[in-house]
């Protein structure tokens, strides 16, 4: 089944087509989500939401980009939405604590270990993920897609709906910021 047949199958609500879509893209979507949210359960939640959204809005997919590009776009958007809601919950929790209403302790997420990293690099990778979490959203997305999903700058520009030079600039600034954050951490 090629991509056009797959899209047609999804439009006809064909379950075989949907299963094929999930089987083909589940790891790419999950890996992208886990690279941004740094938590396995949240990443699975995001991945499920991505496929549900695709199933519901396949009729609005015009086919101007590749299906994978569309999936990456939804995955990054959903993952960033989750980070924003996590931040607002944290802010609300802080407010509750200030006014003496919240009894639950506020704590940062523990160091994240990506399952695809070899044991000898796990410690450094955890430091890098901690630094990535401090990057602005667009730099975080560009860096994650490039490093974890191995996408080219052209593919990232399609996902982020921007130009290749803009992605180059994002990557340059991301690396500079990461370097600064890591240097501070080491000192």
């Amino acid at each position, binding site marked *: 089944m090629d991509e056009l047949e797959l899209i047609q199958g999804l439009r006809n609500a064909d379950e075989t087509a949907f*299963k094929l879509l*999930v*089987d083909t893209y*589940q*790891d*790419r979507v*999950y*890996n992208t989500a*886990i690279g941004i949210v740094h938590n*396995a359960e949240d*990443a*699975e939640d995001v*991945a*499920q939401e991505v*496929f*549900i959204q695709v*199933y519901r809005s396949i009729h609005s997919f015009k086919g101007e980009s590749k299906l994978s590009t569309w999936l990456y776009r939804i995955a990054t958007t959903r993952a960033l939405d989750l980070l924003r809601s996590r931040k607002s919950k944290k802010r609300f929790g802080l407010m509750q604590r200030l006014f003496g209403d919240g009894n639950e302790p506020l704590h940062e997420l523990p160091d994240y270990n*990506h*399952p*695809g*990293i*070899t044991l000898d*690099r796990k410690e*450094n*990778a955890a*430091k*890098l993920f901690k*630094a990535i979490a401090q990057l602005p959203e667009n730099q975080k997305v560009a860096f994650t897609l490039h*490093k*974890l*999903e191995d996408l080219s700058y052209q593919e990232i520009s399609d996902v982020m709906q921007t130009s290749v030079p803009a992605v180059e600039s994002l990557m340059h600034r991301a*690396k500079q910021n*990461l*370097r600064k954050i*890591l*240097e501070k951490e*080491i*000192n």
Partner: protein
Amino acid sequence: MDNNRNKQVDEILGSLDGSRRAAVPDFFYTRLKARMEKGLEQGQSLNKSWLLRPAFAITALAVVLLINAFVILKDDATKDNSTKEVETLQSIAAEYSLNDNSPVYDLNQDK
């Protein structure tokens, strides 16, 4: 010192190079299907959820208040009208000598 630090930063920055893609947990598709079916059921059972929306509740309350206000205002207007009607009837009665202390009653009492 600086060289050592730069080397350490470079090592950290390169720690994701050549990493494997993280795979979804087992039975991902089963859980996804279950969530979709649950969502569909919830969607069907919540077809009348608009009844619980604040916009609906506020509109319903406003309608009830408007009906109350309308009834109260109309009642006041009716009272005004009935007072006028009584006055008119009294004046007619007085004109035709149909008051309570009319001689008819007096005559009956005499009998």
